[in-house]
């Protein structure tokens, strides 16, 4: 138990070596190590989910489920040379799919109140920027799920091609092609 209380300093910049150590400790069951990984990756996973589902409460629920699933399955995690975030993105993608599957049986998106979907935590932007962002977010929602993922990971999160490719289980070439098509499609919708 004593070892589980080791304090970890979280750096804002992603440090590969430090990250690997944290992952190793988390796999051994150190909750503090997983806590540090949570602090580091939770905002990006939240953004990923939020842009896809468009509702703060749902985004929070799904993000919580993603990290809960990650912690529950951490002992089975195997370092295959991919970044830890790729694994989290894969879990997040699956949870978003499950969310839509469950939602479909409940109600259709068209029947929902438009005010239900509002951009949270963007208070620093002026009204016109907020409206623009909401328009873009809705346009992203109209894209194919793979295109949505590429747009979020490449253009919002600025992740390298390699990381996106491993998160989406595709080649770097395929991701390049997809990002080109996704942007083209998004411009067409807007």
């Amino acid at each position, binding site marked *: 138990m004593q070892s589980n209380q080791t304090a970890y300093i979280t750096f804002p910049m992603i440090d590969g070596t430090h990250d690997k150590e944290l992952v190793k400790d988390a796999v051994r069951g150190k909750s503090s190590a997983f806590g540090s990984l949570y602090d580091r990756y939770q905002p990006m996973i939240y953004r990923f989910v939020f842009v896809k589902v468009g509702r703060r409460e749902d985004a929070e629920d799904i993000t919580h489920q993603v990290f809960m699933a990650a912690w529950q399955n*951490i*002992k089975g995690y195997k370092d295959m040379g991919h970044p830890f975030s790729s694994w989290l993105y894969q879990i997040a993608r699956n949870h978003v799919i499950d969310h839509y599957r469950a939602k479909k049986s409940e109600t259709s998106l068209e029947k929902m109140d438009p005010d239900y979907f509002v951009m949270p935590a963007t208070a620093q932007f002026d009204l016109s920027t907020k409206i623009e962002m909401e328009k873009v977010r809705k346009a992203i929602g109209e894209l194919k799920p793979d295109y949505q993922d590429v747009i979020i990971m490449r253009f919002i999160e600025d992740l390298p091609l390699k990381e996106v490719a491993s998160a989406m289980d595709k080649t770097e070439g395929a991701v390049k092609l997809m990002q080109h098509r996704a942007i083209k499609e998004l411009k067409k919708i807007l």
Partner: protein
Amino acid sequence: MNLLELLKQFKAISPDPAFKEQSKRAILATEPAAPVWTPRRMFFRVVETGVAVALTGFFIFLIMGGFSGSTISPVQYAALDPASLHAEAQAIDMQIQLAQLNYNEVAAAESTAQAGTVTAAPKTMGLMAITSSTSSTTLPAASTSTVTIDQALESLSR
């Protein structure tokens, strides 16, 4: 605003700090589950270990000199066999002598050619003149040029 710039603005979206703390506490309050050993997982683990052991054994066998000759014994080093070492040494000696012979041949040819140019007639006389003047020179090295490889090998073997 440019679309790409607008997309960058999305990075400002962040979760509610209260939710973040609450969620983290709730997650870390649970214990991670032990990995479930399904038959498929067990099969892959066994195959993975088996392949690793087999490959390690194969490479150790190769390092020990496996497949170096017709015999498969990994401990018998062909490079340390006295008979083969002796044969190899003899072959080297022979090669040195042949190289020496070759050098003599080239040196003789060169000296003959030089002598030929000194006594050569004007260009109009052509190749025949050069050949004739070459044949007229009597240099001691010229005699070595008549020794063929077969003769040299025969003398060496003697």
